[in-house]
């Protein structure tokens, strides 16, 4: 679906065709539905389109259609500036965070949803409170911890930092999803002689597939997009992530917009693709967990 974002020809799609069914043939729909929708789509898509045009048209061209198409800017940033390495670093951090956050969130979410234990309320309260702790404000103490633990300029260190900040919300979301899986299924399996662990893997886990996709994807997007930790904790160029590389590009490529745009496309494509897949779960997940506390 989102391939349209990187394929300029279809970005300015015509507005959705008017509905054919008779009961909808109401002329005011054009003003209260189609017109605002088209305006908002333009507001959303023109910036993406602008980046795509800059990334694919030859340097010096001011054409609004990237034709003849060129990959010179991608060559510049990927090989010349090192976005190839940054991409790899971001991917390692994104996937690493995804795995760790998902596993820990499953464990903790299961504990919250299926057990009643002493200190549960305090734990939940602590999880909620973490939503108010800003990464930017934690830069100073985290830098000191990372320095003494030898985690500066290390991708592992960045996975740990991203995990610590994403896990609480992921755990709350996951406990909501676990609660939605009927406990009776699991109990029936246990009556049949399964251990709790086996019952979980055989009965509950398969039901949680959409939840795992959703929570994992959010963790990936969050880690992929994280800027300040990567900026502060990884000062060597071979450990830069895409946002850090981009931020330097913003300063250095002040005249080379083609290179900046190509770097932007490289940073955008993975998250926008992932997002297209999980967009529906986002609507469900957030309403189930985070907001309703």
């Amino acid at each position, binding site marked *: 679906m989102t391939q349209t974002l990187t394929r300029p020809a279809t970005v300015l799609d015509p507005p959705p065709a008017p509905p054919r069914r008779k009961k909808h043939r109401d002329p005011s729909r054009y003003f209260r539905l189609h017109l605002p929708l088209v305006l908002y789509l333009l507001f959303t898509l023109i910036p993406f389109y602008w980046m795509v045009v800059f990334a694919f048209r030859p340097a010096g061209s001011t054409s609004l259609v990237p034709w003849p198409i060129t990959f010179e800017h991608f060559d510049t940033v990927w090989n010349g500036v090192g976005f190839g390495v940054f991409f790899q670093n971001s991917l390692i951090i994104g996937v690493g965070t995804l795995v760790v956050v998902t596993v820990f969130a499953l464990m903790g979410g299961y504990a919250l949803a299926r057990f009643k234990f002493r200190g549960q309320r305090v734990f939940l309260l602590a999880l909620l409170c973490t939503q108010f702790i800003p990464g930017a404000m934690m830069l100073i103490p985290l830098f000191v911890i990372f320095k003494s633990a030898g985690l500066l300029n290390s991708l592992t260190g960045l996975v740990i930092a991203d995990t610590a900040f994403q896990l609480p919300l992921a755990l709350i979301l996951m406990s909501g999803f676990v609660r939605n899986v009927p406990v009776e299924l699991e109990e029936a399996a246990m009556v049949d002689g399964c251990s709790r662990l086996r019952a979980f893997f055989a009965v509950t886990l398969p039901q949680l597939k959409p939840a795992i996709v959703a929570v994992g994807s959010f963790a990936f997007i969050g880690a992929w997009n994280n800027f300040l930790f990567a900026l502060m904790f990884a000062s060597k160029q071979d450990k830069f992530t895409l946002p850090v590389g981009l931020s330097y590009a913003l300063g250095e490529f002040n005249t080379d917009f083609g290179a900046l745009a190509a770097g*932007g496309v490289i940073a*955008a494509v993975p998250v926008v693709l992932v997002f297209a897949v999980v967009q529906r779960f986002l609507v469900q997940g957030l309403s189930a967990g985070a907001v309703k506390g």
Partner: protein
Amino acid sequence: MKTRTWAPYALIAPTLVLMAVFLVYPIASVGWFSLRHHTVTQPWKNGFIGFENFRRMLFEDQLFWQSLVFSAKWVVVEVGLQLVLGLVLALIVNETFVGRGLARSLVFSPWAVSGVLTTGIWILLYNPSTGIFQQLAQWGIGDAGTSVLGNPETVFPATVVTELWRGVPFFAILLLADLQSIPKDLYEAASVDGAGRWRTFVSITLPHLRDAIVLSTLLRAVWEFNNVDLIYTLTGGGPANQTTTLPLYVARKAVDSHDFGYGSALTMAGFVILLFFSILYLRLSKFGSRA
């Protein structure tokens, strides 16, 4: 399944350890640092100085107060506009029309884009030589003017619009989720009773959305207060510190000047403000009634 086993504690142990080491301990150490003179560049001057950092912050630092005022302005304008536009967008994509799934994916997609990338995209749009305003001027629409980000009069609206692009989908997604939970028969009953579109919106939709609106507004206010990536890269807090928020000020103290002592004192001020927000949030989310 009530139980007295150790199982739940084992399951939450990794989370507890991570939270203790990377969230709780750092908060405590911010308190300690705020009472010290501590810079990375001049470590020989480091030492305990009591409340000197706070005195300097409250009574001598113009930029601290300026950044607080700008933070408030930023949060109010940004969250207010995001809420209104997000609500309108949620109502639109909640209607039935051909291509609705695609439309949703497209209008929500900026949510997934990082602050730095948002900056990159909008710098391309705003750039004074080949940007959108120059293109429009070529077609005879408006006037090309100067760089919107360099001009003190346009830098604020330009930054607000940029963050709106990425921020409106958040509200739209949350409010859409809540819109979908309104029972259909309520609307049918209203329509049988002859209620118009506006009346239905005011009497059914808005009351139902109230809790979601309050909580998402609060969450977003905290988030926008803490938002650093976008402003840091788009304006760097300039021109002339006009767009410096409190967390941006902290980040610059940490990243650029490595003044950890004073930066920690600024952080403590931020914590006090955030504490107020969290208490409000927990009250409104009726945390107490759940257990």
